């Protein structure tokens, strides 16, 4: 009896220790992000934490720093193009790999996924050394193409995952009922894959938006992450934190909006 109680007592202690451990790891995960957000409201230019006073001056300064503003526009442009190309190419590739049995299927699947396991530095350097063949100079187009090399496999991976629970007989039924291939694709395949495709689009957008390893080789240092990197290296002041906070808000807004869109879709499907 007493040993059972002792054991229960011990397991509760163990549970407490476990909880404390998880809490410590959670603090570790959030600390740098929280510190960056708090510091963006600092009233002084030194990176002192906690800040001696509060102000919005670093947001004003960040918004009036042309490198940040143009960097943001360039990065959004690249990321949007990358997301669009990757979603189309990646989704079609996933459908080909999932729906069809053809010679070379495994080889193609391995090839499409390969960029995910190779070091990005190697991909970036290889691209830098071959851009000349295609008469492409470092800049917007080079960055879009380079990011797509990583973006396409991610979309393929995510869409393949959502195809795992996909019922091919629905397409068969649609075709048997007289719908054309295109109509079946538009009205059956695409809506069922929408969550996976959406997840892929956001993920790839953020991936490209935050990319340093490839952009360093393929652009002229004008994307937002590269501008921020230069800024940190030469004069670290809280304006980087202000941009950081805006970026966090930006990521959360993208996720929130897409989450809402997906939920609406689910409602529609439930009603139908």
């Amino acid at each position, binding site marked *: 009896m007493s040993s059972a109680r002792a054991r229960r007592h011990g*397991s509760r202690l163990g*549970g407490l220790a*476990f909880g404390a*451990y*998880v809490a410590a*790891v*959670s603090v*570790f*995960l*959030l*600390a*740098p*992000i929280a*510190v*960056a957000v708090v*510091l963006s409201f600092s009233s002084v230019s*030194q*990176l002192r*934490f906690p800040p001696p006073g509060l102000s919005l001056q670093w947001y004003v300064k960040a918004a009036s720093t042309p490198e940040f503003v143009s960097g943001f526009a360039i990065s959004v442009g690249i990321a949007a193009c990358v997301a669009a*190309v990757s979603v189309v*190419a990646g989704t*079609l*590739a996933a459908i*080909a*790999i999932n*729906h*069809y049995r*053809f010679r070379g299927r495994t080889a193609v699947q391995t*090839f*499409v996924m390969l960029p995910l*396991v*190779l*070091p*990005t*530095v*190697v*991909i970036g*350097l*290889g691209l*830098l*050394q071959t851009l000349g*063949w295609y008469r492409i100079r470092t800049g917007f187009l080079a960055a879009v*193409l380079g990011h797509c*090399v990583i973006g*396409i496999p991610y979309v393929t991976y995510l869409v393949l995952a959502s195809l795992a629970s996909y019922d091919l007989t629905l397409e068969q039924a649609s075709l048997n009922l007289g719908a054309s291939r295109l109509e079946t694709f538009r009205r059956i395949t695409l809506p069922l894959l929408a969550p996976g495709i959406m997840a892929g689009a956001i993920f790839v957008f*953020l991936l490209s*938006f*935050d990319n*340093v*390893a490839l952009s*360093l080789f393929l652009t002229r240092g004008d994307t937002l*992450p590269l501008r*921020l*990197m230069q800024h*940190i290296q030469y004069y670290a002041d809280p304006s*980087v934190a202000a941009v*950081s906070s805006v970026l*966090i808000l930006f*990521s*959360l807004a993208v996720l929130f909006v897409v989450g809402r869109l997906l939920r609406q879709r689910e409602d529609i499907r439930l009603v139908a």
Partner: protein
Amino acid sequence: MISTAGVADIGVPGVARSRPLLARVRQGLPPWLLLLPALTVLIPFFLLPLASLLRNSFNRDDPTALMVADFTWRNYVRVLTDTLYLTSFGNSLAMAAAIAATTLVLGYPFAYFLVQRAGPWGPVLRWLVYTPLIVSVIVRVFGWIVITADSGLINTTLLALRLVDEPFKILFNVGGVFIGMCHRYFPLAVLPIASAIAKIDPALLAASFGLGAGPTRTFLQVALPLSLPGVVAGGQLVFAAVLSDFVMPLLLGSTRFRMIAPAIFEEAIGNVSWASAAAMAIVMLVMTALLLLVTSWTFRRLAPWARTL
């Protein structure tokens, strides 16, 4: 009679052969048509660059031109014997091993809690793991600079508590890179482990308890072995990611602790030595591939049960 047979002989096989051919073409076309957009990007901008990198690694760097076509092993010999390059490789490998070990040890209990015990906290903790993936890496670097700098959060606290007399050098040192990378790659270790733990059939754990094993023994002999595939996958992901990371060494580290990814960049852009940069990249590629193959193979030999998972 003979003539009709002849016609039939010629005609029928022809029809029989052409039908399946057409059907085969029609069946064969869609997958490659669907793959076309992906391959139009990946072949010229991924496959050919890798091939050209391999070729360039045998070229000769020329101080007056960009590269001179050649077939020499000189670049490889230099990359694999010069102490400057060797220490870069060594530092990167050591850091990758340390980060993989740390994130796995720290991440395993966290993943276990996330899947088995979190209850109402589950969604919150899941989001916590995802945040580092969503928040820009520069934001996190900035946060760590503020925390680990000589006049940063950790050092002012340590000084105020009189635990140290002078600031503890973390930022722009090995320690800064280590902390930043642990933070950056923690999710890469946790997510595969969590999905492996989630796949464990609860009936197996119940059976272990039913047969008289305590919680410790059940964990060590049932749950842990079954979740090992996730541990191996997480370790491989983290290891490969550390090798190719250059934001962390560049912003949180110092030139006294050279790592391979910034070294390749420096060689290609700073020194404009494309051939030797290519050789470094190929060595890194081979190292990564070997590592993935060797760990997967060893794991399959040592843990045959994982094959059925």
